[in-house]
């Protein structure tokens, strides 16, 4: 873990430690992981911006159906390209010590495909089709499913899930914390 140290000043590390859920050691480890995605580029400039295709080579993201969404959400330029700070931010949100509320916030953004701050029917459809992958549910099944989800979760009956409603679900889920997590 020692070799990455020269690339950061003590001050930067302190900043990262204060602003993420990582310790300094973990930050350095994260940087190693980031570096392994594009060694020569990052070796040159520690905070280099890697294109989304590079970021998606990270094993957990490459097989994740929401991989692209995750990159877009965390990218500071909104196009999926991530700097090291964006990457660190991502890992910190997915780490074990991030609180449920922060994780829920990001999960909501990931699922909110059209970006209207509500999980509407089209968002839900996209989420489900991404989840099931190659196996497609029929249209009637899909509608049934969405109707059921809305029945459970849509407290104010407006046909879409707001963040508060989404958070309500997440609060009551025992598995969310252990599944919405990527080990560094």
């Amino acid at each position: 873990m020692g070799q990455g140290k020269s690339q950061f000043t003590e001050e930067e590390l302190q900043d990262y430690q204060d602003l993420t859920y990582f310790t300094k050691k973990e930050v350095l480890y994260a940087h190693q992981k980031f570096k392994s995605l594009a060694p020569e580029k990052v070796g040159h400039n520690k905070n280099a911006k890697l294109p989304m295709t590079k970021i998606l080579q990270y094993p957990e993201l490459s097989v994740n159906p929401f991989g692209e969404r995750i990159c877009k959400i965390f990218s500071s330029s909104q196009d999926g390209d991530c700097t090291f700070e964006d990457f660190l931010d991502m890992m910190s949100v997915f780490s074990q010590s991030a609180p449920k509320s922060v994780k829920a916030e990001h999960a909501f953004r990931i699922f909110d495909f059209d970006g209207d701050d509500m999980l509407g029917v089209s968002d839900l459809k996209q989420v489900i089709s991404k989840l099931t992958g190659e196996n497609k549910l029929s249209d009637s099944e899909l509608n049934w499913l969405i109707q059921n989800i809305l029945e459970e979760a849509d407290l104010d009956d407006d046909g879409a899930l707001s963040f508060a409603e989404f958070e309500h679900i997440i609060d009551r889920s025992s598995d969310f914390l252990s599944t919405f997590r990527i080990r560094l």
Partner: protein
Amino acid sequence: MDNKPVYYQRTPLWTVTFGADDLHRAPSTKGLRSAFVERNSVPIASGNDENLDDNCFENINVENEIYGNRVYSIHRNQLRSQRNDIDGAIEARVGGIKARAVRRNKQTGNMMESIENHAELIVAKMERDSELMEDSPTSEELRKETLRDMPQCLTLKRCVKEKLSKSVSQKSKRKPLGCWKMFKYRMSITKSKFKLSMKNLAYMLELWYGTMKRIEGNFGSGVASFFKFLRWMFILDAFIALVTFSFIVVPQIVFHSRNGTLFEGFQAMDILTGEGYLTNTFLYYGFYTNQSISYTPLVYSMPDAYFFTMICLYLFSFASLSISVAIDYRRSFIETEGGLQNIFANKVFCGWDYNIATESTARLKSRAIYNELKELLNEVMYESEKETFIVVFWTRTMQLMMHLMVSITLAASGYLMWFLMDKSAKENWSPIYTALVVNVIMAVMPIVFSFIINYEGYKKPKTKLMFTLVRTFILGFGIIGVLVSFWLKNPDADCWETSLGQEIYRLILFDFIFSVIVSPLLDLVSYCICSLFTDCNLHFDIARHTMQIIYNQTLFWVGLFFSPFLAVMVSIKLFLIWYVRKTLVLKLCSPPSRSWRAAQTTTWFLMISFLSLLLVMALLGYIITSTPTSTCGPFSNYEYIYEIVTLGLLQLRKGNQVWQILLFVTKPGFIALVLIALCARVYYMRAKAQAQRGIVAIYREMLKWESRDKEFLLDNISFLTRGQWQYKVQEGRELDPITSQQGVPRLRGVQGDFIRDPSRFSGASSSVELPLDSDIDMQHFSGHEKNT
């Protein structure tokens, strides 16, 4: 969740871009509703409030564009409703043009500046909070925490942090600190530093980190939960081993090397039986002396050391186990209110396991999610289908029969064990038979249980799992119970404690051989055979393996008191099991085809181990207080073991006042009273929880009705005014949009902040009749009409 003030906008930068086209979309009730009901985020205040008259749409819009804010809906609706209005159209156009200009700007890479602007805004909001801006460590800690929990990008956070620390150091008037305050600050700094270094240490020392990651990546968090459980048990046992070894075994060996005889007459068979030569070694209770060992000038009292080390270890395991049970139980049952509502939403939103890192696992996972969704849908669709009486009767009878059969099998295995032990005690059968038979039973029966449960007609997999777990648990504990009661009933052996220790030693040793050598070999052979014919899919049975670990642990807890060295053995065993299982799982098994509710089942497993430890401790309590000691071991000076406290440590004589009190407190009647009081308290808490659940249901219903009311009122407003309604922008804006988290301005808007053109309205109301078929409060609505 928590009611922390929000210093940021809930939405990220620039997620939404809406251009001029959006401004001219036809208004819909959905849009109207969204203006009042749906929006969670509140408008961020623009820098200069004097601009906020009705003509500043372009201002607002441009700002929205810059900060990607979600307030647009209100203003957008304003624009929409005025789209016939020429002025409005022009304004909208201007806004659109400006918006496009901003977007172009953004494209040309003016991002840093925007981040800077955004950071300024957040800083401005945070600066208003005096609690955050103090120049003290606590406030600094608070600042860090607030920033850390803010869902914004890291670059922005760093920017904000820098600005904040600048403004804090500018503002603070450096007063000389008082002594006490200085001390307090120092303490809090040291505390946070200590916490951090502990976190660092925990990260460094996390055992088997890479393996855990690989297992999670290949098999998801279900299989990983078994390994986590195993690791937890290993760490606990290793700690116990360390303590017993250093406080009990080492002093005894030192003592023995001074006064004892030489070891002789060792046979290889002794390792298996634990008898012969091994009987009189540090393995067992009987070997430990009842004397004090004097290392000049210190005196080490062996009985005291033995007793208190053991008690402390049991209490320590009990405490750590109950703490983790409590935490887990709270997390997966209390906070989730049983965790069984929202099955669909849970499956969809929490279905994916983000730990997964390999292609094939990901494919299987999405297949599993697909299957489960289909199953759930089928269940819901055909739920109404009633079963005929005959079918119900048949399944019930079947289940009853199965329960009976299982109980008989359990009783039979208990009897078999008693019989074998009796034989080995009286007719000198080799004690190995008992251990072998018990291990075969423990290896075979759980497989039989998990097999027959499929034919008992339980619908839910959860019920199936529960019954299998309960049966396995009863089996394990039944065997241990028979074992202990046999030696308590036959105390005529000259050192029954050692005999009990030997019995447990054998069981653990054979379990060792089974789980480290035999069962992996069997797995390997079955894998080889089945891969000859077809594509082999060996699945890892999480429940069975975890129960095996729990059984092993229960045995260990019973045996620890009679055989201190057992701890070392069990730790080595768990250590080896980890590696054997890990290799087998990674090499042979394929990922599970069904999802495993890891969080809840882990809680069950923890609860089962907690229960078994509780039972073991009750058993030990009985042994300590009511079973006479034999002539060997550290407590042979006393009649009962507990007298080491009352007679030895406290120097109490019978008939003493304290003695009387102790007698009274330990009377069954008194303990029953305490238990009843505890039960009453639990009952009270339960009733309270249930009442609260009821209230939550009522609130939920109210929420629904309220939003229906709003919807209805809005429909009426737009109907009456024919779209000619408007908001007073100032009303909504006066409130500090950031600090008022709830959508207050919008609610207010519903109740009467709309302005109408009076002339048009009077025309409308004469011709329009309000629909009266709804059951909401129409008076309230018409009352407003009159007022305005």
